């Protein structure tokens, strides 16, 4: 009977009544890093069973996941009060300071106060408050020490709260059991005040268990409530006391014999409140190495994908159903990332959730449905979807992955024609994929690239045009100088002209000695005439020698004598052939030597 009443208090809904509604909101913490999450708890309370839902405004900077609601009802002296706690998980999307705007509810006279959350970059300082995590893992998995019964009223009634483990990871399920023992008859209603659980997400694990147990040799009846709690932040977290308020029927005092006294005294109820001591849970952060798309699920997951059909036409729709099932707080699983495939167009994803609480482990399945339209014909593969999670048993990150799906797409039927637009529009290209271009199947044309490259590679040969220009410049300079100073040019070029004529004479010496000698004789006269800038005709040996001696830098006397000897021998060989021995070639050589000496000594 007591158990039924207890359950009824927890689960029943009462008729609405006129009364005020109030709304409050609280954050699990006000500072958080990018790789963490926080919990926003919005409590709507009033004295009626049907309470309005809070109106959550858009929250910039956060992805918001609805994590469920807890409702509690209580009847005190026939008056009902009700409160509903809506829990939202906020996952920060960027670093900075973000505002949680006031949250209102219909019927509430005032919204909640504005709150500020400071999000630090990933890996930054952990949000406060934080407990000190121990490195020891020895306590993991074992049940927390059972709390001693609190305020056991002569062991007539008491409450015990326990956790199934003393240490857990962030987002790992821990089961809280609250057991109310009673060894006496209870009168009236029970009121159960759930413990405060800041820093936890909670999920009820119905039904209320009832039974009998013997404690310290005394028989008790008990009712037990179980709640799955998911810590959302690391550190040492506290679960507040669970309180049960009830009324005990008092028996008549000893020594009262009067029947009426006993009759009236036994019905006097006595209010009693018993609570459990607070519990603590050591929450460890998840280890390093989180996948980039990790959403915080701790447990075990599996995933599968199915398509309503796999043989379609381009432009037709296919419904993909992705199911993620397993244990853990599946509410935080985000929708799968749609692959960026130009051949497929993905539409909005819808999700639904079915909870499974078998064996007091929260789990179930989250189902995502999305419509896909292939844009091209042929075989189009939809890649598999992947959901990361942390496997607390194996202590490693894992992935639940689906297989890919192969769609066989036939060419479409050109639905655009049926649309019959009012104005004719030119068909446009549809970009399906951006990729590199295909191989070259023949060599590219090398000309003129190779030709120009060959010119560039001539290296030192590029010196040639510069040399040609230099040569031309020198030649032109000499020409100009000769034109501007004929006598000087005649003086400078005398030897080279004489040598050329003497070489010619040497060539003639073998065949025509007379012509060779005449040429040598004329060369001597011409050379001296060039040096003196005088006409060669009529130049005698005497006038030649006098002229040379009269130069500003005359030749030496020895050279003068050598010139005289050669000149006279030339005249003798020319006009008295046979008078002088020796061949004309050696004579030409002797004449060249004399002229060279003369050229070296004389200066204008």
């Amino acid at each position: 009977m007591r158990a039924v009443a207890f359950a009824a208090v927890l689960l029943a809904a009462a008729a609405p009544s006129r009364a005020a509604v109030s709304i409050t909101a609280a954050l699990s913490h006000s500072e958080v890093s990018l790789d963490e999450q926080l919990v926003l708890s919005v409590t709507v309370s009033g004295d009626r069973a049907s309470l309005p839902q809070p109106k959550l405004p858009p929250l910039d900077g956060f992805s918001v996941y609805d994590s469920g609601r807890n409702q509690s009802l209580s009847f005190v002296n026939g008056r009902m009060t009700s409160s509903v706690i809506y829990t939202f998980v906020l996952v920060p999307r960027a670093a900075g300071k973000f505002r949680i705007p006031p949250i209102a509810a219909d019927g509430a006279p005032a919204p909640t106060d504005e709150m500020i959350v400071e999000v630090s970059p990933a890996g930054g300082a952990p949000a406060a408050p934080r407990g000190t995590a121990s490195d020891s893992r020895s306590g993991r998995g074992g049940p927390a020490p059972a709390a001693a019964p609190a305020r056991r009223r002569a062991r007539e009634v008491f409450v015990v709260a326990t956790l199934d483990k003393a240490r857990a990871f962030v987002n790992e399920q821990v089961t809280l059991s609250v057991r109310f023992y009673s060894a006496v008859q209870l009168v009236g209603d029970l009121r159960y005040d759930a413990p405060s659980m800041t820093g936890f997400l909670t999920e009820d694990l119905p039904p209320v268990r009832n039974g009998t147990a013997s404690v310290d040799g005394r028989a008790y009846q008990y009712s037990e409530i179980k709640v799955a709690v998911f810590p959302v932040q690391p550190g040492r977290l506290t679960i507040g006391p669970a309180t049960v308020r009830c009324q005990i029927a008092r028996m008549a005092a000893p020594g009262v014999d009067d029947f009426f006294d006993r009759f009236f005294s036994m019905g006097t109820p006595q209010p009693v409140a018993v609570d459990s001591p607070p519990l603590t849970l050591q929450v460890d952060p998840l280890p390093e190495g989180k996948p980039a798309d990790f959403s915080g699920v701790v447990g075990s997951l599996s995933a599968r994908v199915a398509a309503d059909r796999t043989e379609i036409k381009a432009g037709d729709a296919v419904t993909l159903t992705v199911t993620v099932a397993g244990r853990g707080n599946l509410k935080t699983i985000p929708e799968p990332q749609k692959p960026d495939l130009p051949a497929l167009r993905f539409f909005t994803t819808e999700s639904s959730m079915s909870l499974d609480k078998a064996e007091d482990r929260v789990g179930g399945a989250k189902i995502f449905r999305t419509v896909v339209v292939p844009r091209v014909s042929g075989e189009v593969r939809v890649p598999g979807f992947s959901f990361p999670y942390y496997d607390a048993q194996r202590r490693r990150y894992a992935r639940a992955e689906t297989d890919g799906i192969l769609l066989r797409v036939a060419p479409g039927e050109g639905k655009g024609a049926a649309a019959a637009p009012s104005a004719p529009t030119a068909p446009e290209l549809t970009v399906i994929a951006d990729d590199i271009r295909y191989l070259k199947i023949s060599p590219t044309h090398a000309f003129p690239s190779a030709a120009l490259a060959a010119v560039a590679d001539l290296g030192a040969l590029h010196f040639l045009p510069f040399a040609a220009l230099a040569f031309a410049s020198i030649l032109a300079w000499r020409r100009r100088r000769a034109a501007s100073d004929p006598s000087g040019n005649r003086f400078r070029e005398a030897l080279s002209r004489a040598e050329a004529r003497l070489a010619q004479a040497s060539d003639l010496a073998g065949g025509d000695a007379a012509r060779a000698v005449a040429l040598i004789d004329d060369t001597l006269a011409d050379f001296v005439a060039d040096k003196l800038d005088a006409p060669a005709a009529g130049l005698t040996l005497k006038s030649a020698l006098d002229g040379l001696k009269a130069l500003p830098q005359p030749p030496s006397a020895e050279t003068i004598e050598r010139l005289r000897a050669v000149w006279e021998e030339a005249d003798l060989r020319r006009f008295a052939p046979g008078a002088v021995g020796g061949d004309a070639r050696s004579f030409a050589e002797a004449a060249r030597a004399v002229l060279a000496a003369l050229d070296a000594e004389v200066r204008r």
Partner: protein
Amino acid sequence: MTRVLLLAAALALPASAAAALAAQSYPDAQARRLYDEGRFEACAAAYEKLAAAAPRDAALQYNLGNALFKSGRLGRATASYERAFTLNPRDSDARANLAFVLRRAGEDFVPPGIPPAVFWAFTALSERELAGLHWLSAWACLLLLSAFTLAGERRRGTRAPWTAAAAAAWCVFGLWWMGLRAVLPPDRGVVVSSRGELRHGPGPNFGVAFTVPEGRRVRVMGASGAWLEVGVLKEGARGWIEAASVERL
């Protein structure tokens, strides 16, 4: 006029011979078959051998870039496309694929603020082609100037316009060549490691200044042991990186 044409023909003769040598058979059928079968690693190895035997073949460098990109080596693919582009800058395929891989590396093929048509025209000739044109015009200019110098007064009037034109071409191609070397310096390299770390000095004892994504083009500015001092062309940042992380062009 006739002499000028003869001069140009004489200069083009060795170049024509080089072009004829380049137009040989194209022995990449096996590598192409590997590419079509999706065996990109083996295809890349085959093209590497072919490209090593003919380093001036732009098409082989292009095909090697394709095989490297398909086998997931973005940095080395970028280097091959750069070589193909350098050898034959008017090849639209090489330009397209180079722009594609540079986008993957976070870099623009056409520098920001420059109209694509202007950039296309500016890079339409390769550095070697510009060098060839520069030297061709230099030869023409200098030889015409020599002839002009030696010519008599009568002939100077007819040779002057040709000489001036050659001099102008020499200046234009020379400036163009220098400009291209400034925009696409010959001592370039490409980051080929997946996450190139640029340090403050040549060695692990110096801290990491910043990281460079694979496929980014850098200018090699110096070397010390197994480390190179490089400047990232896009951002202008400068640092030291392991030589093995950079493929020089």
